């Protein structure tokens, strides 16, 4: 008897691919991006040399497209579908994990809007390093601009941190209730630390005399 041909349902593989992309490369990129831009804390010269360094790398545009843009595009498109198929009017369940789940989806949408704005604003329509720095400083010097920028950055950070926690469940690493609680706490500490770092970076950029 001929062996029935195995059918691999794509749903599972696509969802797991989406999950990996959240960490590799997108999550790693987010951490790198924050680390590199912490140069702004030291001062405008240090920050300028980091931006120059990034911009002068050979084939940077190729790396940007294949390692950052395409993965985010896939993660964002499939992620928007995931948000669509989740029920979120769940105010009747006042459990911490439920709030984290809802926030994961809310920050997904905010991050999506923020990333599009951010790429257009500091990568596509700006030419030189000076342009980038001036554009960022100008936005951050208005109170509204500062708050919106902060919301965007913090959304991405929360989405990544809580995503790291659910990633560890999705990949079958965290099984028990207590280890899940511990890692949920640790990833929220990571979230708080990155939020603080980004706040300092944004304040320092806002203070730059540009």
């Amino acid at each position, binding site marked *: 008897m001929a062996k029935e041909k*195995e059918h*691999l*349902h794509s*749903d*599972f*593989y696509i*969802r*797991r691919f989406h999950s990996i992309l959240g960490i590799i490369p997108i999550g790693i990129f987010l951490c790198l991006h924050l680390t590199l831009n912490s140069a702004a804390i030291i001062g405008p010269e240090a920050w300028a040399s980091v931006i120059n360094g990034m911009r002068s790398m050979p084939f940077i545009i190729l790396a940007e497209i294949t390692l950052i843009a395409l993965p985010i595009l896939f993660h964002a498109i499939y992620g928007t579908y*995931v948000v*669509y*198929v*989740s*029920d*979120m009017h*769940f105010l*009747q*369940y006042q*459990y911490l*994990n*439920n709030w984290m*789940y809802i926030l*994961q989806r809310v920050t997904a949408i905010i991050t999506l809007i923020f990333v599009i704005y951010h790429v257009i604003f500091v990568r596509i329509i700006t030419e030189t390093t000076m342009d980038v720095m001036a554009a960022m400083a100008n936005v951050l010097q208005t109170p509204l601009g500062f708050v919106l920028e902060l919301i965007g950055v913090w959304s991405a950070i929360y989405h990544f941190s809580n995503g790291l926690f*659910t990633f560890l*469940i*999705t*990949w*079958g*690493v*965290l*099984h*028990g*209730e207590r280890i*899940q609680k511990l890692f949920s706490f640790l990833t929220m500490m990571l979230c708080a630390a990155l939020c603080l770092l980004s706040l300092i970076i944004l304040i320092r950029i806002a203070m730059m005399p540009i």
Partner: protein
Amino acid sequence: MRNEEKYITFKIKRRDKPESTPYWEEFRIPYKPNMNVVSSLMEIRKNPVNASGHKVNPVVFECNCYEEVCGACTMIINGTPRQACSALIDEIIGKHGMERPITLQPLTKFPVIRDLMVDRQIMFDYLKKVKAWIPVDGSFGLGRGPRYDERKRSAAYQISRCMTCGCCAEACPSFNERSDFMGPHVFSQVKMFNMHPLGLMQKEDRLKAIMSHGGIQDCGNAQNCVRVCPKSIPLTRSIAELNLDVNLLAIKRIFKW
């Protein structure tokens, strides 16, 4: 004595036919000690007169065991999905007082047949889809089965108490009409049958079933399911453990493709 009689109020979401629009109706019944929601609904059935004094059709509901093992009487009581037979009135009014009406609603994730009665067939369909059984029927005796490791047996016992009541599916954000997610309960059943020394032989079939459309990948880790389960089934632990199993199988399958 008459004027000392105390009353409790129920606010019930009713529906006459599956397609008709739901409406809220209030009922007041005399308080007695040790009532539960099922016995209260039976009081209403005895004398189906609503709070404004009109005679109406009795409220339709389901129940069987009266001891929280069949799951038939599951409904949303004051916002929480649970069993009406084990929802004690004294406990509820102890928390909220006599004055606040007790709200009863049918489960929202399943088709309503009438009033508080819903059709949970889809939960059983998904159990079939994931082969939540052990095939032992045959034309000859198979002899004694293998022994069951005691630790596994007691873990399996815990899961076997699931009564397919639907509380977990009701609270699960991934289980809704826009998605074909199988629901939290199936994964614990798969875990249980995969732990059994005979069930082990169909382990891969069950894993493949929960990797198909609507399977384990659609869980978003909200973990509401485990909070509302009246039987304390370790739903999220089963999902986490199965995640490892399906991921390993997925890698194997990719390279055999």
